[in-house]
């Protein structure tokens, strides 16, 4: 099955800093999403982005499907950005999501 790797596993930033989170996947995909897991455990959808680039406020994402990676950019980070960021991709034939192991982000005031 498809393999999903995220890097870095942990990231500590000062408030106001920028960061880039990476998701590599081992095969072609139909669907890809980025999630933020908040302190209550909820998975908050950030982007549905199987290809191309999208922006939403301070967050943006780019997926280069032909090279099998996706990037999540966080600019001017805030303490509320803290939490775990997951990327999820699906097998081209099954459509179930395979999640990466996540990047745990801590933003310090």
């Amino acid at each position, binding site marked *: 099955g498809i393999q999903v790797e995220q890097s870095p596993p942990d990231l500590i930033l000062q408030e106001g800093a920028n960061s880039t989170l990476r998701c590599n996947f081992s095969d072609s995909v*139909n*669907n890809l*999403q980025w*999630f933020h897991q908040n302190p*209550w*455990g*909820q*998975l908050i*959808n950030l982007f*549905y982005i*199987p290809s191309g680039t999208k922006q939403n406020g301070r967050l943006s994402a780019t997926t280069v499907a032909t090279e099998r990676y996706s990037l999540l950019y966080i600019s001017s980070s805030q303490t509320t950005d803290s939490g775990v960021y*997951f990327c*999820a991709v699906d097998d081209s034939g*099954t*459509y*179930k*999501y*395979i*999640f*990466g*192991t*996540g990047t745990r982000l801590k933003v310090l005031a």
Partner: protein
Amino acid sequence: EPEVTQTPSHQVTQMGQEVILRCVPISNHLYFYWYRQILGQKVEFLVSFYNNEISEKSEIFDDQFSVERPDGSNFTLKIRSTKLEDSAMYFCASRRAAKNIQYFGAGTRLSVL
């Protein structure tokens, strides 16, 4: 924004008891999923459901687990005889089409004592 609704938000049960986790997917969606996340770990796929039947299940989804869509709106996950290792957050998800965004519920935290 449409949402997937899960109840209860937290369920505490004794080992060996049966539990039913409930989900109301988005109304015009066709594909339904259950995932689970053991504390501190990544989210894992359990089962997918399409056209009133299971389309795929993982190794975790053994004979103790079952799913139902009893009335066209609810989607339930039953664990027949819970074990300590079933303690986890369980997420329900749905999507309208195969190549489309998957919407996740807020989760049910299951604690087996």
